[in-house]
């Protein structure tokens, strides 16, 4: 489920990659990313609206595999 203002979409192959999951968890300053018990990525939905639009997650993952959507800009 998306936040009220922000949604983050991660490509399935990135979400399954334990190294990338750990990296995304490390770079996000507002704890939007976390890892499951098996090391795969999970999104902390309660923190989505805390996103500060820093783009660190976008830079940490392969191009186009992480998208940060501003829901207030969509119709």
């Amino acid at each position, binding site marked *: 489920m998306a936040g009220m*203002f922000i949604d983050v979409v991660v490509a399935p192959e990135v979400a399954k990659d334990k190294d990338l999951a750990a990296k995304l968890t490390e770079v996000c300053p507002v704890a939007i990313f976390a890892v499951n018990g098996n090391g795969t990525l999970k999104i902390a939905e309660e923190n989505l609206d*805390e996103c500060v639009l820093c783009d660190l997650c976008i830079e940490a993952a392969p191009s186009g595999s992480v998208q940060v959507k*501003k829901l207030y800009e969509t119709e």
Partner: protein
Amino acid sequence: MRFYEYESKELFARHGLPLGQRAVAESADQARQAAADIGGSVVLKSQVLSGGRMKAGAVKFADTPDEAAAHFDAIMPIVVNGQNARSVLVESKSPIAKEYYVGITWDGRRKLPVLIFSDMGGIDIEEVAETHPEHVSKTHISTILPFSPRVAKEAIGAVGVTGSELNRLTPIISTLVEIFLHYDLTLAEINPLAQLENGKFIVLDGHVDMEAEARDKHKALLDDLGIQPEETRQARPPTDFEIKGAQVDASDHRGVAGNVVGFDGNLGLVIGAGGGSLTLFDAVRKHGGKPANYCEIGGNPSVKKAKELTKLILSKPGVEKIAVMMNVVSNTRVDIVARAVIKGCIESGRDPAETIAIFRIPGSWEDEGFKILKKYNVEFCDRSVSMYEAAGRAVAKMS
């Protein structure tokens, strides 16, 4: 943060100010023993964080230890301006020839401490200033240059005090100024500063307020005086609303969204930034508005923290709308606050467009913030609208 009288006097004593023999009593037996130890007539004073003790009957005189014990029992149940007595200060009764006033506080306009002196002590200094202004001197003190006793002499001499009184008062007042400056006080007051029949001076009553932000710096003193970290020492006990506000602020280390104070009005205020809270609160009142609360936000609180503050304010009975207003912000993001207040309205079951009377936060990330506000049809303005004008727009929307 207020000190009780007995704590203020302990601080004064450490710096050599002249004080009578005294002891703190927490039971009638202790009051009896203190009176016996001091000998002669004593005065018993309720220890509350408020003035008005004499009028409330919480100051009594006793000539014998048994009388002191009886007065203790009479004083302790008396509530003074909503404050329960913590203990009773038993002090020697002094033969007074004349009473003076001395206080140091901050002059917000000059941004300097001001030394206030009067040769008419023992009564309300504001009343003296109105009725006998020639008996009150006000002298500003540098916070950069070392304090000179010459400044104290000028303050005393300005009301016509000369001779031995001038010479005896000067070191007392100089010491009080040094205490004020050293301990980051917002008020250091002696009233009355009494001249005894033998010509000597003595501190009869006094109290100090310390800047709350200075508590850590002066932890050693506070520990010595037994002032616990959790003691807020406000003029009245906090309300549930204010306690919840403090809990919201403590829930997340990021930024400030708290310092909530409840009022009786219908316009909730989410305000802050560089003195903006005080300015905006005053502006709302100047326009005839009735604030439901005071609060402070700043330092970029998280969305959740600012949202919870919004929800708390909206939950206050009688709140019809909120005004979200700040000075121009640099370290708080407009979009983050916009998200928070809109989310707070929606989670409170209210329409943001109807509930937010005005959103006036210009500054960092304002373009992003304004997009959010537009989406939810919330009225907003940028820095071309002054804080005063924004407050007026909010008040105009109230019924």
